């Protein structure tokens, strides 16, 4: 049995770093605000959302056909197409390709799928030097941490943290935390790695069945550098990334970066159809639980996700707790509904790392019912008997009280009379996580029921 990750404990650690929490909250909420401005600029946004949702649902309900079509067309362009059932097969396949080409050093751009597969540690153990080329992802690699956000991987770090990491790794002045200087220093340090790399790897944001190509969106242009310098390029693509036609890209590209950062498009939107002149291109199509999820009436809609991160930016829990508190590859609301699908026992606490406010469902560009799915995962956890003891005890007590009105009203009056006189240690102790970082608001002079009986009963 896997040990469950403890989002509460991990979140507490982040919240205790007060400056980190406030900076993180401000920055992530800023992305949400930029998203709102960008969306307001597109009067047809509601139509786009509906279209995007329908195109994804259509593709997923015909996924076998589109996968075959993609393979056929990609092969026509000279792309080598491989298939991997799970993470291990993906890693083995990639390693085999790299070995066959005598690759010693690999430069890669950000890929959540490669994170999910644990590819980098796998390759490093086998003697291949792997360099993340996205700045945020490189910061995370040097910190030995997974990305905390799917678009901005190091968003939970302060500039001073980055200065300390770069000072150690690339010899910058530890006292200089100017983001311009740090970014320039990493540019200088990364260039030789790009030049020396024997292979480049990317993920894919979209794979187009009709054309047999795939699209990678970055802001740094790092995927394009990794694809255009070494003679060998490999892309890892989850089977859910398929879309039918080139013209469908118009819908998704218009939505992706507006939802993510509030810009109309990423700086680079790169289309790969076959190897570049003199190069070789491999694509690995990865299942890794996706086909199984497709068969789940409650959860298959999560496969529509285009990884924009809008749900994370709007989530009150994510903003305060930080992405590492999920202890999983995917964080934020989308992580809450993806992670338990990979390992229910390990991630059984994650569905409770949410206030169920529903804001995620509202901002999702492909209309995934995220909040509903969070609730449904809670039910799955309860049905499998995986609820934490404290939740079980609390829930059954609540069940008894709520099913007996007399007991509930008696309880209300007791709380009303005793709360103002309760010693602090009774409210703010280790047994009550709600008492951490929170003060109980002053109780009103009467309960709602008392007010109602007094004011409304007499004039119906």
């Amino acid at each position, binding site marked *: 049995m896997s040990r469950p990750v403890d989002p509460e404990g991990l979140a507490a650690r982040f919240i205790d770093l007060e400056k980190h929490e406030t900076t993180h909250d401000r920055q992530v909420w800023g992305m949400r605000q930029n998203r709102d401005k960008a969306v307001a600029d597109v009067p047809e946004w509601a139509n786009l959302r509906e279209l995007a949702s329908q195109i994804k649902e259509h593709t997923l309900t015909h996924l076998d056909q589109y996968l075959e079509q993609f*393979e056929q067309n990609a092969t026509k362009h000279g792309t080598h197409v491989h298939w991997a059932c799970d993470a291990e097969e993906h890693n083995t396949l990639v390693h085999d390709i790299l070995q066959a080409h005598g690759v010693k050093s690999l430069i890669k751009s950000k890929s959540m799928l490669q994170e999910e597969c644990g590819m980098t540690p796998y390759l490093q153990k086998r003697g291949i030097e792997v360099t993340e080329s996205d700045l945020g992802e490189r910061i995370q690699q040097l910190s030995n941490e997974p990305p905390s956000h799917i678009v901005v991987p*190091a968003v939970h770090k302060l500039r001073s943290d980055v200065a300390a990491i770069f000072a150690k790794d690339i010899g910058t002045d530890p006292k200089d935390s100017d983001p311009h200087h740090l970014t320039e220093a990493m540019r200088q340090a990364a260039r030789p790695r790009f030049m020396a790399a024997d292979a480049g790897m990317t993920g894919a944001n979209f794979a187009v069945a009709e054309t047999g190509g795939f699209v990678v969106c970055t802001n740094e*242009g790092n995927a394009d550098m990794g694809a255009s310098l070494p003679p060998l390029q490999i892309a890892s693509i989850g089977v859910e990334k398929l879309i039918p036609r080139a013209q469908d890209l118009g819908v998704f590209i218009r939505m992706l970066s507006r939802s993510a950062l509030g810009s109309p498009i990423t700086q680079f939107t790169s289309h790969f159809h076959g190897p570049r002149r003199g190069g070789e291109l491999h694509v690995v199509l990865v299942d890794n639980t996706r086909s199984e999820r497709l068969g789940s009436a409650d959860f298959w809609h999560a496969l529509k996700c285009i990884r924009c991160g809008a749900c994370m930016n709007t989530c009150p829990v994510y903003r305060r707790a930080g992405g590492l508190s999920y202890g999983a590859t995917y964080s934020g609301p989308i992580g809450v509904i993806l992670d338990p699908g990979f390992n229910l026992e390990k991630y059984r606490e994650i569905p409770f790392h949410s206030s169920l406010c529903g804001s995620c469902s509202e901002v999702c560009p492909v209309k995934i019912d995220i909040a509903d799915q969070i609730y449904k995962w809670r039910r799955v956890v309860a049905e499998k008997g995986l609820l934490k003891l404290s939740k079980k005890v609390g829930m059954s007590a609540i069940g008894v009280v709520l099913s007996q009105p007399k007991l509930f009203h008696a309880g209300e009056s007791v709380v009303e009379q005793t709360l103002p006189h309760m010693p602090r240690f009774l409210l703010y102790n280790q047994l009550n996580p709600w008492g951490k970082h929170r003060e109980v608001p002053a109780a009103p002079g009467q309960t709602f029921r008392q007010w109602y009986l007094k004011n409304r009963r007499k004039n119906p």
Partner: protein
Amino acid sequence: MSSRDIILASVRNNLPQPAVPLPENPEVQRSPHVGEPILAYFQRELEAMGGRSFEVADTTAAQAKVAELFPTAKVICSVVPEVPGTKQLEAALDPHDLNDVDVGVVRSRIGVAEAGAVWLTEADLVVNALGVLSQHLVVLLDPAAIVETMHDAYGQIDLTASSYGVFMAGPSATGDIEGVIIHGAQGARSMTVLLLAPKRFDG
């Protein structure tokens, strides 16, 4: 059974029901962009993405603009007839040899107003790495070749015609350290669009 067949069989077994039809025309009904000429729209969005643009009257003006903007450039690699460079580029060149390029000069055939983006393919770049290894990128663009939205752009492009094609909207950028926007993270530090119709060579 191969992994391919296992995955396809598992997908088939698990296809959600009922099947959802494909929307006929993904080009959405959109409100026309009123009150602003398309060129101004493009220029405004490009600037918001960190790029800049200049209308130049002719080839001489284009050359003068490049000289004015990059007075200290040592290596200029141009693949357009309008602007002479100092470095020759042939398709067979090893892309690593472009690491010394200060300014790359290319021509895009499509601009997209709503994104402030230009479309560049392997045919336009000659060697793909030119677009990202150059310290600065200059892109010539015919103002008549600007379309309004990404839908329009995809409607004009045949993706299968080139192994590589990129919409570039401004220079390389990052906000990975505390959200501070910085240009020149990995690719070009600046992107300049010179608005100029292609030169006609008669005979």
